[in-house]
Protein backbone atom coordinates (compact mmCIF):
# COMPACT_ATOMS: atom_id res chain seq x y z
CA UNK A 1 0.00 0.00 0.00
CA UNK A 2 2.70 2.50 1.09
CA UNK A 3 4.96 1.31 -1.73
CA UNK A 4 2.27 1.82 -4.33
CA UNK A 5 1.38 5.25 -2.96
CA UNK A 6 5.07 6.27 -2.99
CA UNK A 7 5.39 4.98 -6.53
CA UNK A 8 2.30 6.87 -7.63
CA UNK A 9 3.38 10.13 -5.95
CA UNK A 10 6.88 9.95 -7.43
CA UNK A 11 5.51 9.40 -10.91
CA UNK A 12 2.85 12.10 -10.55
CA UNK A 13 5.73 14.45 -9.72
CA UNK A 14 7.55 13.38 -12.87
CA UNK A 15 4.54 13.71 -15.16
CA UNK A 16 3.76 17.10 -13.62
CA UNK A 17 7.33 18.23 -14.27
CA UNK A 18 7.09 17.10 -17.92
CA UNK A 19 3.76 18.93 -18.31
CA UNK A 20 5.07 22.20 -16.86
CA UNK A 21 8.27 21.93 -18.88
CA UNK A 22 6.41 21.49 -22.16
CA UNK A 23 3.98 24.27 -21.23
CA UNK A 24 6.86 26.63 -20.47
CA UNK A 25 8.46 25.75 -23.85
CA UNK A 26 5.17 26.52 -25.60
CA UNK A 27 4.78 29.85 -23.82
CA UNK A 28 8.35 30.79 -24.68
CA UNK A 29 7.79 29.90 -28.34
CA UNK A 30 4.61 31.99 -28.50
CA UNK A 31 6.41 34.89 -26.85
CA UNK A 32 9.26 34.66 -29.37
CA UNK A 33 6.80 34.60 -32.30
CA UNK A 34 5.04 37.66 -30.87
CA UNK A 35 8.34 39.50 -30.44
CA UNK A 36 9.42 38.60 -33.98
CA UNK A 37 6.15 39.90 -35.42
CA UNK A 38 6.54 43.17 -33.54
CA UNK A 39 10.11 43.50 -34.76
Amino acid sequence: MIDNLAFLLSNVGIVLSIYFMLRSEKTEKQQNTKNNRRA
Partner: protein
Amino acid sequence: MRDLIILVVLLAFILPGLTRPYLAFAGYLWTDLVVPQGLVFGFLAGKPISMIMALVCFVSLLLGAKKLSFTQSKSIPFLLILFLIWITLTTLNARFPMAAWTKWDPAFKTVLMAFLLMFTITTRKQLEFVVLVFFCSVMFYMASAGPKTILSGGGYGARLILNGSNFGLSESSTLACVAVMTLPIILYLNKHISLIPFLKNKKFLWLLTGILCITTVVGTTARTGLVALVSYVGIRSFNFKSMMKLIPLVLLAAIVISQVAPQSWFDRMGKTTASQRVAVWKWTIDYVAEKPVMGGGFQSYLDNGGKLGLYDQELVDFKGVRAFHSIYFEVLGEHGYVGLLIFLGLIFTTIRLNHSLIKRTDIDERTKDFCMSMNHAIYIFCIGGAFIGVAFKPIIYQLIAISVAHHTIACRELREESS
Protein backbone atom coordinates in the same frame (compact mmCIF):
# COMPACT_ATOMS: atom_id res chain seq x y z
CA MET B 1 -1.82 -0.87 -12.30
CA ARG B 2 1.89 -0.28 -11.72
CA ASP B 3 2.56 -1.31 -15.33
CA LEU B 4 0.03 1.26 -16.48
CA ILE B 5 1.67 4.05 -14.46
CA ILE B 6 5.09 3.13 -15.87
CA LEU B 7 3.66 3.07 -19.39
CA VAL B 8 2.20 6.57 -18.92
CA VAL B 9 5.52 7.94 -17.62
CA LEU B 10 7.45 6.17 -20.38
CA LEU B 11 5.20 7.64 -23.08
CA ALA B 12 5.43 11.07 -21.43
CA PHE B 13 9.20 10.84 -21.79
CA ILE B 14 9.34 9.12 -25.17
CA LEU B 15 6.85 11.05 -27.32
CA PRO B 16 8.09 14.61 -26.71
CA GLY B 17 11.59 13.26 -26.01
CA LEU B 18 12.17 12.09 -29.59
CA THR B 19 12.99 15.64 -30.64
CA ARG B 20 14.11 16.95 -27.23
CA PRO B 21 17.36 15.28 -26.14
CA TYR B 22 17.22 16.68 -22.57
CA LEU B 23 13.79 15.05 -22.05
CA ALA B 24 14.89 11.70 -23.43
CA PHE B 25 18.00 11.74 -21.23
CA ALA B 26 15.90 12.73 -18.21
CA GLY B 27 13.82 9.63 -19.01
CA TYR B 28 16.96 7.51 -19.00
CA LEU B 29 17.99 9.09 -15.69
CA TRP B 30 14.59 8.02 -14.30
CA THR B 31 14.98 4.41 -15.51
CA ASP B 32 18.53 4.36 -14.10
CA LEU B 33 17.42 5.51 -10.63
CA VAL B 34 13.98 3.92 -10.25
CA VAL B 35 14.76 0.75 -12.30
CA PRO B 36 11.09 0.32 -13.32
CA GLN B 37 11.79 -3.05 -14.96
CA GLY B 38 12.27 -4.46 -11.45
CA LEU B 39 8.86 -3.24 -10.34
CA VAL B 40 6.55 -4.63 -13.01
CA PHE B 41 4.80 -7.97 -13.05
CA GLY B 42 2.11 -7.31 -15.66
CA PHE B 43 2.25 -6.65 -19.40
CA LEU B 44 5.58 -4.76 -19.09
CA ALA B 45 7.34 -7.64 -17.30
CA GLY B 46 10.49 -8.68 -19.10
CA LYS B 47 10.39 -5.71 -21.48
CA PRO B 48 13.76 -3.98 -21.89
CA ILE B 49 12.55 -0.58 -20.61
CA SER B 50 16.06 0.74 -20.04
CA MET B 51 17.15 -0.26 -23.55
CA ILE B 52 14.06 1.35 -25.09
CA MET B 53 14.84 4.59 -23.23
CA ALA B 54 18.49 4.42 -24.36
CA LEU B 55 17.32 3.98 -27.97
CA VAL B 56 15.04 7.01 -27.62
CA CYS B 57 18.04 8.96 -26.30
CA PHE B 58 20.13 8.14 -29.37
CA VAL B 59 17.24 8.91 -31.76
CA SER B 60 16.75 12.25 -29.97
CA LEU B 61 20.46 12.99 -30.39
CA LEU B 62 20.03 12.51 -34.15
CA LEU B 63 16.73 14.38 -34.50
CA GLY B 64 17.57 17.11 -32.03
CA ALA B 65 21.28 17.50 -32.79
CA LYS B 66 20.83 21.26 -33.21
CA LYS B 67 19.56 21.53 -29.64
CA LEU B 68 22.82 20.29 -28.12
CA SER B 69 25.49 22.62 -26.80
CA PHE B 70 29.17 22.30 -26.01
CA THR B 71 30.13 22.50 -22.37
CA GLN B 72 32.18 25.36 -20.96
CA SER B 73 34.30 22.90 -18.99
CA LYS B 74 36.45 20.74 -21.22
CA SER B 75 38.30 18.88 -18.47
CA ILE B 76 35.31 16.92 -17.09
CA PRO B 77 34.08 15.55 -20.46
CA PHE B 78 37.71 14.63 -21.19
CA LEU B 79 38.08 12.84 -17.83
CA LEU B 80 34.80 10.98 -18.38
CA ILE B 81 35.96 9.74 -21.79
CA LEU B 82 39.31 8.78 -20.29
CA PHE B 83 37.52 6.90 -17.51
CA LEU B 84 35.36 5.04 -20.06
CA ILE B 85 38.47 3.98 -21.98
CA TRP B 86 40.31 3.05 -18.80
CA ILE B 87 37.57 0.85 -17.30
CA THR B 88 37.32 -0.94 -20.66
CA LEU B 89 41.08 -1.53 -20.76
CA THR B 90 41.15 -2.88 -17.20
CA THR B 91 38.20 -5.15 -18.04
CA LEU B 92 40.12 -6.55 -21.02
CA ASN B 93 42.88 -7.30 -18.54
CA ALA B 94 40.57 -8.47 -15.71
CA ARG B 95 41.42 -11.23 -13.25
CA PHE B 96 37.85 -12.59 -13.51
CA PRO B 97 36.78 -11.76 -17.09
CA MET B 98 33.23 -13.17 -16.94
CA ALA B 99 32.35 -11.35 -13.72
CA ALA B 100 34.17 -8.23 -14.89
CA TRP B 101 32.22 -7.88 -18.15
CA THR B 102 28.96 -8.36 -16.21
CA LYS B 103 29.76 -5.27 -14.14
CA TRP B 104 31.39 -3.38 -17.04
CA ASP B 105 28.11 -3.35 -18.97
CA PRO B 106 26.00 -1.20 -16.56
CA ALA B 107 29.05 0.81 -15.43
CA PHE B 108 29.99 1.78 -19.00
CA LYS B 109 26.38 2.73 -19.83
CA THR B 110 26.10 4.82 -16.65
CA VAL B 111 29.24 6.86 -17.36
CA LEU B 112 28.46 7.20 -21.10
CA MET B 113 24.90 8.44 -20.53
CA ALA B 114 26.08 10.94 -17.90
CA PHE B 115 28.69 12.17 -20.39
CA LEU B 116 26.02 12.72 -23.04
CA LEU B 117 23.52 14.23 -20.56
CA MET B 118 25.71 17.29 -19.95
CA PHE B 119 25.47 18.30 -23.65
CA THR B 120 21.69 18.04 -23.77
CA ILE B 121 20.82 20.52 -21.00
CA THR B 122 21.04 23.97 -22.54
CA THR B 123 18.70 26.24 -20.55
CA ARG B 124 17.99 26.89 -16.88
CA LYS B 125 14.42 25.56 -17.25
CA GLN B 126 15.75 22.30 -18.70
CA LEU B 127 18.26 22.06 -15.88
CA GLU B 128 15.58 22.53 -13.26
CA PHE B 129 13.45 19.95 -15.03
CA VAL B 130 16.27 17.37 -14.93
CA VAL B 131 16.87 18.15 -11.24
CA LEU B 132 13.14 17.66 -10.57
CA VAL B 133 13.14 14.30 -12.37
CA PHE B 134 16.21 13.33 -10.31
CA PHE B 135 14.48 14.48 -7.11
CA CYS B 136 11.16 12.72 -7.86
CA SER B 137 13.03 9.52 -8.77
CA VAL B 138 15.01 9.34 -5.53
CA MET B 139 11.97 10.43 -3.51
CA PHE B 140 10.24 7.22 -4.60
CA TYR B 141 12.63 5.38 -2.27
CA MET B 142 12.25 7.86 0.61
CA ALA B 143 8.44 8.01 0.29
CA SER B 144 8.47 4.22 0.52
CA ALA B 145 10.98 3.78 3.34
CA GLY B 146 10.15 6.88 5.41
CA PRO B 147 6.52 6.08 6.32
CA LYS B 148 7.41 2.40 6.93
CA THR B 149 10.05 3.51 9.42
CA ILE B 150 7.53 5.73 11.20
CA LEU B 151 5.02 2.88 11.36
CA SER B 152 7.32 -0.05 12.12
CA GLY B 153 10.67 1.42 13.17
CA GLY B 154 12.55 -0.16 10.26
CA GLY B 155 15.56 -2.21 11.30
CA TYR B 156 18.60 -3.97 9.92
CA GLY B 157 17.56 -6.11 6.95
CA ALA B 158 13.96 -4.80 7.11
CA ARG B 159 12.16 -4.68 3.77
CA LEU B 160 11.78 -0.94 3.33
CA ILE B 161 11.52 -0.76 -0.45
CA LEU B 162 9.16 -2.45 -2.85
CA ASN B 163 10.70 -5.63 -4.20
CA GLY B 164 13.14 -5.66 -1.26
CA SER B 165 16.17 -6.87 -3.18
CA ASN B 166 19.20 -4.76 -4.05
CA PHE B 167 17.71 -3.16 -7.14
CA GLY B 168 18.35 0.51 -7.87
CA LEU B 169 19.22 2.39 -4.72
CA SER B 170 17.40 0.08 -2.31
CA GLU B 171 20.48 -1.42 -0.59
CA SER B 172 20.28 -0.03 2.97
CA SER B 173 23.61 1.85 3.20
CA THR B 174 23.25 3.25 -0.33
CA LEU B 175 19.69 4.31 0.43
CA ALA B 176 20.77 6.06 3.65
CA CYS B 177 23.57 7.91 1.85
CA VAL B 178 21.27 8.98 -1.02
CA ALA B 179 18.64 10.12 1.50
CA VAL B 180 21.17 12.52 3.04
CA MET B 181 22.38 13.60 -0.44
CA THR B 182 18.80 14.61 -1.25
CA LEU B 183 18.63 17.09 1.66
CA PRO B 184 20.68 19.89 0.00
CA ILE B 185 18.63 19.47 -3.19
CA ILE B 186 15.41 19.84 -1.14
CA LEU B 187 16.75 23.05 0.42
CA TYR B 188 17.56 24.42 -3.04
CA LEU B 189 14.20 23.47 -4.57
CA ASN B 190 12.25 24.95 -1.65
CA LYS B 191 13.87 28.30 -2.25
CA HIS B 192 14.25 28.47 -6.02
CA ILE B 193 11.85 26.13 -7.81
CA SER B 194 10.25 28.02 -10.70
CA LEU B 195 9.12 25.35 -13.14
CA ILE B 196 6.18 24.31 -10.93
CA PRO B 197 5.29 27.71 -9.46
CA PHE B 198 2.84 26.51 -6.80
CA LEU B 199 5.58 24.48 -5.11
CA LYS B 200 7.80 27.47 -4.40
CA ASN B 201 8.19 28.26 -0.70
CA LYS B 202 5.70 25.58 0.29
CA LYS B 203 7.77 25.06 3.41
CA PHE B 204 5.51 22.39 4.88
CA LEU B 205 5.77 20.22 1.75
CA TRP B 206 9.54 20.48 1.51
CA LEU B 207 9.89 19.91 5.25
CA LEU B 208 7.84 16.75 4.85
CA THR B 209 10.19 15.46 2.13
CA GLY B 210 13.14 16.31 4.42
CA ILE B 211 11.55 14.36 7.29
CA LEU B 212 11.01 11.39 4.95
CA CYS B 213 14.73 11.47 4.09
CA ILE B 214 15.78 11.59 7.75
CA THR B 215 13.39 8.80 8.74
CA THR B 216 14.75 6.74 5.84
CA VAL B 217 18.24 7.16 7.30
CA VAL B 218 16.92 5.93 10.64
CA GLY B 219 14.91 3.10 9.08
CA THR B 220 17.86 1.60 7.25
CA THR B 221 19.90 1.45 10.50
CA ALA B 222 22.93 1.89 8.28
CA ARG B 223 25.83 3.55 10.09
CA THR B 224 26.85 5.08 6.75
CA GLY B 225 23.65 7.13 6.93
CA LEU B 226 24.44 8.44 10.39
CA VAL B 227 28.00 9.35 9.34
CA ALA B 228 26.64 11.09 6.22
CA LEU B 229 23.99 12.96 8.24
CA VAL B 230 26.46 14.15 10.87
CA SER B 231 28.87 15.16 8.08
CA TYR B 232 26.17 17.16 6.35
CA VAL B 233 25.41 19.01 9.59
CA GLY B 234 29.15 19.67 9.87
CA ILE B 235 29.40 20.93 6.27
CA ARG B 236 26.42 23.24 6.75
CA SER B 237 27.82 24.63 10.01
CA PHE B 238 31.02 25.98 8.50
CA ASN B 239 30.00 29.49 9.42
CA PHE B 240 28.08 30.89 12.38
CA LYS B 241 25.09 32.10 10.35
CA SER B 242 24.51 28.70 8.77
CA MET B 243 24.98 27.04 12.16
CA MET B 244 22.22 29.18 13.66
CA LYS B 245 19.92 28.34 10.75
CA LEU B 246 20.69 24.67 11.18
CA ILE B 247 19.86 24.40 14.87
CA PRO B 248 16.10 23.86 14.26
CA LEU B 249 16.92 21.17 11.67
CA VAL B 250 19.28 19.37 14.05
CA LEU B 251 16.67 19.53 16.80
CA LEU B 252 14.05 18.20 14.39
CA ALA B 253 16.36 15.35 13.33
CA ALA B 254 17.06 14.52 16.98
CA ILE B 255 13.32 14.50 17.80
CA VAL B 256 12.52 12.35 14.72
CA ILE B 257 15.30 9.88 15.58
CA SER B 258 14.38 9.68 19.28
CA GLN B 259 10.69 9.11 18.47
CA VAL B 260 11.03 6.82 15.47
CA ALA B 261 14.20 4.81 16.06
CA PRO B 262 13.77 1.53 17.94
CA GLN B 263 16.27 0.29 20.56
CA SER B 264 17.83 -1.98 17.89
CA TRP B 265 18.88 1.19 15.99
CA PHE B 266 20.78 2.57 18.97
CA ASP B 267 22.31 -0.89 19.56
CA ARG B 268 23.45 -1.15 15.95
CA MET B 269 24.91 2.37 15.91
CA GLY B 270 27.01 1.41 18.93
CA LYS B 271 28.31 -1.77 17.28
CA THR B 272 31.38 -1.78 15.07
CA THR B 273 32.32 -4.17 12.31
CA ALA B 274 34.86 -1.80 10.84
CA SER B 275 37.73 -4.24 11.38
CA GLN B 276 36.44 -6.51 8.57
CA ARG B 277 36.25 -3.59 6.17
CA VAL B 278 39.71 -2.45 7.19
CA ALA B 279 40.97 -5.99 6.51
CA VAL B 280 39.56 -5.83 2.95
CA TRP B 281 41.08 -2.36 2.45
CA LYS B 282 44.51 -3.57 3.66
CA TRP B 283 44.23 -6.57 1.35
CA THR B 284 43.33 -4.20 -1.55
CA ILE B 285 46.48 -2.12 -1.01
CA ASP B 286 48.64 -5.27 -1.04
CA TYR B 287 46.72 -6.63 -4.03
CA VAL B 288 47.18 -3.45 -6.06
CA ALA B 289 50.88 -3.30 -5.15
CA GLU B 290 51.30 -6.24 -7.55
CA LYS B 291 49.34 -4.52 -10.35
CA PRO B 292 49.44 -0.79 -9.55
CA VAL B 293 48.53 0.51 -13.01
CA MET B 294 45.57 -1.62 -14.10
CA GLY B 295 44.28 -3.15 -10.85
CA GLY B 296 42.41 -6.45 -11.03
CA GLY B 297 39.48 -5.35 -13.19
CA PHE B 298 35.82 -5.26 -12.15
CA GLN B 299 34.85 -7.63 -9.29
CA SER B 300 38.49 -8.26 -8.38
CA TYR B 301 37.49 -8.53 -4.71
CA LEU B 302 36.67 -12.16 -5.60
CA ASP B 303 40.41 -12.71 -5.25
CA ASN B 304 40.36 -12.14 -1.48
CA GLY B 305 38.73 -15.51 -0.73
CA GLY B 306 40.55 -17.15 2.18
CA LYS B 307 43.17 -14.40 2.36
CA LEU B 308 41.51 -11.98 4.76
CA GLY B 309 42.63 -13.94 7.81
CA LEU B 310 46.10 -12.46 7.27
CA TYR B 311 44.66 -9.01 7.98
CA ASP B 312 42.09 -9.72 10.71
CA GLN B 313 42.20 -12.41 13.41
CA GLU B 314 38.38 -12.66 13.35
CA LEU B 315 38.52 -13.77 9.72
CA VAL B 316 41.11 -16.54 10.12
CA ASP B 317 38.53 -19.27 9.50
CA PHE B 318 36.58 -17.23 6.96
CA LYS B 319 36.95 -18.77 3.50
CA GLY B 320 34.46 -16.60 1.61
CA VAL B 321 34.99 -13.25 -0.10
CA ARG B 322 34.24 -9.73 1.07
CA ALA B 323 33.37 -6.80 -1.22
CA PHE B 324 35.34 -3.55 -1.10
CA HIS B 325 32.69 -1.54 0.83
CA SER B 326 34.28 1.74 -0.22
CA ILE B 327 34.18 3.69 -3.47
CA TYR B 328 37.89 4.50 -3.17
CA PHE B 329 39.07 0.95 -2.57
CA GLU B 330 36.57 -0.34 -5.14
CA VAL B 331 38.07 1.84 -7.89
CA LEU B 332 41.61 1.21 -6.62
CA GLY B 333 41.23 -2.57 -6.52
CA GLU B 334 39.41 -2.75 -9.83
CA HIS B 335 41.18 -0.10 -11.92
CA GLY B 336 44.48 0.53 -10.18
CA TYR B 337 46.01 3.83 -9.13
CA VAL B 338 45.43 5.30 -12.62
CA GLY B 339 41.69 4.56 -12.38
CA LEU B 340 41.54 6.00 -8.87
CA LEU B 341 43.35 9.12 -10.04
CA ILE B 342 40.84 9.67 -12.87
CA PHE B 343 37.89 9.00 -10.54
CA LEU B 344 39.15 11.41 -7.89
CA GLY B 345 40.03 13.90 -10.64
CA LEU B 346 36.42 13.82 -11.83
CA ILE B 347 35.03 14.50 -8.36
CA PHE B 348 37.64 17.14 -7.49
CA THR B 349 37.22 18.99 -10.81
CA THR B 350 33.43 19.06 -10.38
CA ILE B 351 33.70 20.44 -6.84
CA ARG B 352 36.16 23.08 -8.09
CA LEU B 353 33.87 23.95 -11.00
CA ASN B 354 30.95 24.60 -8.64
CA HIS B 355 33.23 26.44 -6.23
CA SER B 356 34.51 28.71 -9.01
CA LEU B 357 30.93 30.00 -9.39
CA ILE B 358 30.25 30.23 -5.63
CA LYS B 359 33.16 32.57 -5.02
CA ARG B 360 32.24 34.96 -7.87
CA THR B 361 30.64 38.20 -6.73
CA ASP B 362 28.71 38.90 -9.94
CA ILE B 363 26.36 35.90 -9.83
CA ASP B 364 22.86 35.70 -8.43
CA GLU B 365 21.79 33.85 -5.30
CA ARG B 366 20.06 31.09 -7.24
CA THR B 367 23.26 30.11 -9.07
CA LYS B 368 25.23 30.21 -5.83
CA ASP B 369 22.68 28.07 -3.98
CA PHE B 370 22.58 25.58 -6.84
CA CYS B 371 26.36 25.15 -6.81
CA MET B 372 26.31 24.81 -3.02
CA SER B 373 23.61 22.13 -3.10
CA MET B 374 25.50 20.17 -5.78
CA ASN B 375 28.77 20.41 -3.86
CA HIS B 376 27.14 19.40 -0.59
CA ALA B 377 25.54 16.36 -2.25
CA ILE B 378 28.95 15.41 -3.71
CA TYR B 379 30.68 15.87 -0.32
CA ILE B 380 28.10 13.60 1.30
CA PHE B 381 28.66 11.02 -1.45
CA CYS B 382 32.42 11.19 -0.86
CA ILE B 383 32.02 10.72 2.91
CA GLY B 384 29.24 8.11 2.82
CA GLY B 385 30.87 6.40 -0.17
CA ALA B 386 33.97 5.73 1.92
CA PHE B 387 31.96 2.86 3.47
CA ILE B 388 29.90 1.59 0.53
CA GLY B 389 30.84 0.28 -2.91
CA VAL B 390 28.78 2.61 -5.09
CA ALA B 391 31.49 3.99 -7.36
CA PHE B 392 29.58 2.87 -10.45
CA LYS B 393 26.04 3.71 -9.32
CA PRO B 394 24.56 6.43 -11.56
CA ILE B 395 23.98 9.05 -8.87
CA ILE B 396 27.47 10.60 -8.73
CA TYR B 397 27.86 10.73 -12.52
CA GLN B 398 24.45 12.37 -12.83
CA LEU B 399 25.44 15.02 -10.27
CA ILE B 400 28.67 15.62 -12.21
CA ALA B 401 26.75 16.00 -15.50
CA ILE B 402 24.19 18.36 -13.92
CA SER B 403 26.99 20.47 -12.38
CA VAL B 404 28.81 20.77 -15.73
CA ALA B 405 25.59 21.72 -17.56
CA HIS B 406 24.80 24.30 -14.89
CA HIS B 407 28.30 25.78 -15.15
CA THR B 408 27.86 26.16 -18.93
CA ILE B 409 24.47 27.86 -18.51
CA ALA B 410 25.69 30.19 -15.74
CA CYS B 411 28.78 31.22 -17.76
CA ARG B 412 26.61 31.93 -20.81
CA GLU B 413 24.24 34.05 -18.71
CA LEU B 414 27.20 36.03 -17.32
CA ARG B 415 28.54 36.63 -20.84
CA GLU B 416 25.11 37.80 -22.04
CA GLU B 417 24.78 40.16 -19.04
CA SER B 418 28.18 41.71 -19.60
CA SER B 419 27.68 42.22 -23.38
